């Protein structure tokens, strides 16, 4: 989880992001092709990509995403954070499974999945692609100007998770491996993730190396 430093890139496209924030139960024809700003085409359907994700006793299912069979192998996954549908609602997080440079399957996921790289991808047939067959993009996409802030608390309020967008790193050359060699990427704001766990000190994830030192 520490080898990816998420940075936030804004690609405005009101139609796309509004559609994503408002997507509800599967009514109409799915999968639906949605294009973000003429740059990336997404095949969106409201399927449960987290089916089996919390089957902790089954290593073939736990912490794995469930994906549909795609025309080419999935080589990368990336995250999109939709604008809040209303001021009181949390932003929804979506995961994109890229099988081409501009083509991906899109499904909703839980913000918790940003904490770590999934252990693998699983087809409904049971075939599992292990974690070394794909990468996780360090760029998180959003479509609005408001900074991201997602706060989650478990039933036990001592356990909580806060995801918030912060300013870009002041020392880009020491940022994580995902940003090396891309100075423009280092100018993007950081997505900070803090987890508070009972009987443990708080964990701050996704910080540039300089901040950790």
């Amino acid at each position: 989880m520490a080898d990816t430093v998420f940075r936030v890139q804004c690609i405005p496209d009101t139609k796309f992001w509004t559609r994503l924030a408002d997507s509800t139960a599967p009514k109409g024809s799915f999968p639906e092709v949605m294009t973000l700003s003429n740059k990336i085409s997404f095949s969106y359907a409201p399927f449960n990509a987290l089916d089996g994700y919390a089957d902790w006793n089954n290593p073939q299912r736990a912490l794995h995403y469930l994906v549909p069979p795609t025309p080419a192998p999935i080589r990368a996954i990336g995250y999109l954070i939709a604008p809040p549908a209303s001021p009181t609602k949390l932003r929804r997080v979506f995961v994109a499974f890229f099988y081409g440079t501009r083509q991906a399957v899109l499904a909703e996921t839980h913000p918790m999945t940003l904490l770590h790289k999934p252990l693998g991808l699983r087809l409904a047939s049971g075939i599992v692609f292990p974690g070394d067959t794909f990468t996780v993009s360090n760029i998180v996409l959003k479509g609005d100007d408001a900074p991201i802030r997602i706060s989650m608390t478990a039933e036990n309020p001592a356990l909580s998770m806060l995801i918030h967008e912060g300013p870009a790193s002041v020392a880009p050359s020491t940022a994580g491996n995902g940003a090396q060699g891309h100075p423009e990427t280092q100018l993007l704001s950081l997505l900070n993730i803090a987890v508070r766990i009972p009987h443990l000190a708080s964990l701050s994830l996704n910080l540039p190396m300089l901040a950790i030192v």
Partner: protein
Amino acid sequence: MEHLFWVFVKRVLQPLYAPVQTYKVTAFDWTSAHWAEMAEQSKPSGHTRYTEMQSKKVEHLRQAVVKASRAKRQDDADIGTFEL
């Protein structure tokens, strides 16, 4: 060690975890027609414009070459001699 890892993960993630979308992936029609539509829509929009621009350039160039060769032929004094 692995057991300890899973206990830790379970204790941290389980309380936060909640399914967000409950519909099975198999409920949707991932047909080849769908993937073809995806491929069509993911073509860069600038591509056709670029191709069109390039073909126009080539056409202009071709017309200029034809025009120049016609003009050269008319100006060439030896052309009549050659034909005779």
